[in-house]
């Protein structure tokens, strides 16, 4: 019997993406965001998810897509990570899809640089490609601008020492 995998799917513009359903905690509707000055541009802001403060990442920006059309109210795909959950902002949410492993193909060589790491490959669905995102890679957002007073004799936040 052919292996099957289940994906939580969503759209960014015309592109159709999927994240392994086991990594997804829930789907949330449009949420009010609190923006975070000085944060990496991929960080869209913070949301209140039932009393928890969750970082919302701008998937469009993370994947190098243009800004969302005006009036669009992105939804959140809340994925689990080792340290809490993160909401990935998507234009529209699709169904949970079960796909045949045989329809999978690695990304082509033409896929540029970092995208090759973000996108594990594609499932060739009829009339549509389902691009599989690696949530861990997606969450590896480049660090925020260096602290104004970096290089203190302290280990603050990230892996700063030794750098």
């Amino acid at each position, binding site marked *: 019997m052919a292996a099957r995998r289940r994906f939580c799917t969503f759209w960014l513009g015309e592109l159709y993406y999927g994240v392994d359903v086991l990594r997804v905690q829930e789907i949330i509707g449009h949420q009010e965001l*609190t923006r975070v000055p000085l944060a990496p541009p991929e960080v869209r802001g913070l949301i209140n998810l039932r009393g928890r*403060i969750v970082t919302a990442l701008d998937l469009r920006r993370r994947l190098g897509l243009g800004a969302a059309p005006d009036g669009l109210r992105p939804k959140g795909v809340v994925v689990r990570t080792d340290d809490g959950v*993160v909401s990935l902002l998507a234009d529209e949410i699709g169904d949970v899809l079960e796909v045949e492993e045989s329809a999978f193909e690695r990304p082509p060589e033409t896929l540029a640089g970092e995208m090759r790491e973000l996108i594990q490959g594609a499932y060739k669905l009829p009339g549509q490609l389902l691009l599989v995102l690696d949530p861990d890679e997606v969450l590896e957002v480049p660090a*925020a601008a260096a602290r104004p007073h970096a290089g203190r*004799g302290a280990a603050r936040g990230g892996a700063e*020492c030794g750098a």
Partner: protein
Amino acid sequence: MNDQNLVQEFLLESHENLEQLDRDLVALEAAPGDRDLLDRIFRTVHTLKGSCGFFGFARLAALSHHGEGLLSRLREGTVAAGPAVTSALLALGDAVRAVLGDIRAGGAEGERDHTALLATLTALTERGQRTEDRGQKEEGTATDGLSSVLCPLSSGLGDGLEGSLRVDVGRLDRLMNLVGELVLARNQLLQFTAARSDPAFLGTAQRLNQITTELQEGIMKTRMQPISTLWNKLPRVARDLARACGKQVEIDLAGADTELDKAIIETIKGPLAHLVRNAIDHGIEAPELRTARGKPAAGWLSLRAYHEGGLVHLEVGDDGGGIDVERVRRKALALGLIAPEEAAALDEGGLLGLIFLPGLSTAESVSNVSGRGVGMDVVKTNIEKLGGTVEVQSRPGRGTTFHVQIPLTLAIIPALIVTCAGDRYAVPQASLLELVRLEGEQARRGVEPMHGGDVYRLRDKLLPLVYLDRQLQAPSPQPLSPEGRGVGGEGGLCSGLARCAVPALSRGARGPAPFPRQGEKSHQDEAQADDGQWVIPESDFSPRPGEVTAGAGVPPGRPGPSRLAPAGSKAGEGRRPDVQIVVLQAGDRQFGLVVDGTQDTEEIVVKPLGRHLKGVPLFAGATILGDGQVVLILDVLGLARSAGVVADASGRTLAERAQQARQRGSARPVLLLAADGRRLAVPLESVARLEELPAAAAERAGRREVTQYRGRILPLVRFGAAPAGGALAQMVVCGEPGRQVGLVVDRILDVTEAPADADPATREEGTLGAAVIGGQVTELLDVPALARAAGGRD
């Protein structure tokens, strides 16, 4: 909490760790070169060893010590990971699990025979050892005996907690989440009330509101524990440890009633134990060496805990040998942890930071206590997991201080909500001194430019101004993009409640300011006299129970009253109609934070920021306001640093900072003394003990007068003549531990408060000058200087 509970916790935790160990070991076999994996395995075993030592489980400690030895070889690369190694380590995990089972069943380690396993582990370890220096191994095993003396727990901890009940923390967490949902539902309900006029409905809604608030607070408070629950064990631990290392240690605990969230206490337990172990094992020198260096034979270990700026601060300091940064540099280079060019570029602070790298230890020998090079990275990892930071300051020969800051994850702190560029931010009230509002002409004249920065004359002192919008590089007021607030969504709906949330400004309001910072009260009257200013004493902002969460808050995106100026306008140019200055205390400095507006105060729950925002400066965390919106909490010290108001604190030791605080600090409690017609005052914080000194107890050593005090020689400074005929004098033991001095006086008068500044013109040797305290001229003693002079050494 008693021994049994601690053991239960240990068992639970160890079982989880063992499961992780199994997974990691198997993964390691598949990827033998995975350094992160190896580090994690090492940490797991190391943690296990530490815990076993802590509980006095010698058998487990021996097992894990052997495992650790083998893992060390793996990390060094002198033994290659392979099936034999993995099997042995897995067998170790099984053996530990079996012993844990025995402990669970019978409370003791049982009599299982592990000689075969230990032999295997040793054989594997030595396979790599043969090529190595033989001497090291002996050191590694010679100290095994340590485990038996490591810290059997003192019994009877926390007995007498009658009427209390143990509750599973997971259950509290679930309750907490439910309450969070209830709050949101309540908020929505309250929004509907705006459109209703049915009094019965409104009454019920109000009641629900009140109950929800109380429930929320109640649940949060159930999670708080004083840090003494953790510290109670430390004196014993330190003593046993010191004895095992052949050292003498005096332990000094301050702030034991500082409350922390239960979860934080759990997480910092390990790191704190590591720091204490390190301080005793590496930091504090052996008594002979100390004596030779002119220090008291007994080392000093200080633990301090306090709340500041919405954070819990923990300090672990010793007066030992300090960290030799050159050795750190050499070691890091030798281990290949940094590249030579990196090493060359690092300053002292950067080099100190290297001790947090996995694998780095400057200890020459490996012992059961410490020296494997794990520990500091575990400390750092665990603290960062809480969203905290750890800094180290060290002076060769003077000692080392670790400063840990942890957000109060679930602790509740009062905070002032300010607005900037259309967003709201929370400022921890602990850092807040006062609010100054300049209107119209005042705003234009009051803010004066200096090179590179604006200042404001606050009661004739120049207060540097920091513009929040510039610090945050706020590009523009909150754009009304689809994402924008106030366009539908929850935010826009609560506008009906906005009016009640705007704080009532009262012109030069008077009244008792229940502010903890001393010396502010006296300023209130002056403030009133100041022309045209609006000075709002803190009391006006005190949260009013029941009102705070009543949907409080201006609708986001529409920050408050008309006085809001567009961001980016420069105050100094007078285009901004009003200037709102929030006067803040950052370390030992004050500065004025210019914001667009201020709103109410709220009791906020500090939550750490996710890892994507770890590197973002200026924020201490985030919180959810009563209206359900997330706001960022400003890191006042970070702001001050970023704006250059305070210099970088690195490199200064605890003692120096304390000294600086003493010299610059505001009003502080002092101990008043009388001697030979003089009135003297000693800062209370520097006073260790008050003793009676019989005339016969004062002896001479050379030209100095000394006494025997707690097995040491304490230099004396006598004020006034020696009392006649065997009368008792009063002795005030004060000064930094390790450099204490006994002040001999006639009488101890009182504890009172002294103004911050003594008149420098009256300064003499050993004093900071004279000041008027309680209507009489009193000399403020300079304790460090006296101690230096009396001790005759630095």
